[in-house]
């Protein structure tokens, strides 16, 4: 492994640790949270200055001395993990809730916003982008079907469509983008949650 790659690896370790701490500190008021994050980050950087900053093993040791983010968060008065009980359901309800029943989606969003596991940005994105993606997906599908049905073979000027009219390429692009916008935010929620629990 070249030293450039290992630098990136230790940077990644620190970044991942800081993301876990950030997530664990959800529910702590913003100014206190920022202060703790800045101080812990400064601590880690000072620790790294004392050792070979590219050595992943010593950076791991350093991080384990800094400690489990959940324990630091508990010291900071973060809400206890009971409020994370339903976390696993939220991403699935956000994906399938709108299709199965609107209530499922509402439940998913409620779980999402009452849990300290995710930060505000992730919550906003999952709440608004994901359903918007589903709407785009729906219109994209309708437009694709229309475009495909109305313009078989060589499209001509006389080709007419009802409802949503878009060129086939644009319609397909809309389907792909809509699907991505619908699925990626809840997938991101799952990954954030797994990273958190991996350390607890």
């Amino acid at each position: 492994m070249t030293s450039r790659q290992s630098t990136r690896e230790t940077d990644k370790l620190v970044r991942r640790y800081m993301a876990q701490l950030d997530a664990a500190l959800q529910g702590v008021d913003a100014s206190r949270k920022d202060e703790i994050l800045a101080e812990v980050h400064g601590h880690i950087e000072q620790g790294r200055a004392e050792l070979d900053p590219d050595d992943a093993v010593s950076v791991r040791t350093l991080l384990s001395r800094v400690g489990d983010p959940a324990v630091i968060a508990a010291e900071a008065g973060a809400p206890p993990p009971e409020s994370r009980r339903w976390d696993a359901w939220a991403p699935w309800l956000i994906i399938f809730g709108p299709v199965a029943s609107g209530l499922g989606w509402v439940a998913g969003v409620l779980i999402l916003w009452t849990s300290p596991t995710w930060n505000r940005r992730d919550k906003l994105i999952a709440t608004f982008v994901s359903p918007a993606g589903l709407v785009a997906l729906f219109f994209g599908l309708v437009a694709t079907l229309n475009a495909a049905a109305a313009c078989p073979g060589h499209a001509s000027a006389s080709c007419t469509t009802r409802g949503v009219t878009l060129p086939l390429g644009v319609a397909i692009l809309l389907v792909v983008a809509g699907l991505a916008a619908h699925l990626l935010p809840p997938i991101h929620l799952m990954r954030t949650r797994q990273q958190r629990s991996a350390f607890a």
Partner: protein
Amino acid sequence: MHCMEPGGDINWLAQVRRGVAEQCVLALLTRGERYGFELARELGERGQIIASEGTLYPLLARLRRNGLVETSWRESNAGPPRRYYRLTRDGELALASFKKQWRVFRDAVDEIVNEGSQA
């Protein structure tokens, strides 16, 4: 409590720490102002006082909010500026009162625990 353990082992230590670690930080600061990293290393090396080095920072934030320590930013020869912690007058008073009560408390606990083992 989420930190309840079978036997309550970790739990009592966490609870005692919660009050005592703050006083230990105040005591370390009587020797002059320090920055977080130094305090964390010193407490960490003595063992048991803090659960892990990182838990020092919420503790310091709490002391600052309660007016027992104050902070100032200083340039360092290496790296970004550091936040230095210094005892306030309230912090000195709090520590003085802790020292008095701690002696009585510690002696009482020792006495009771030792009585138990001699019986």
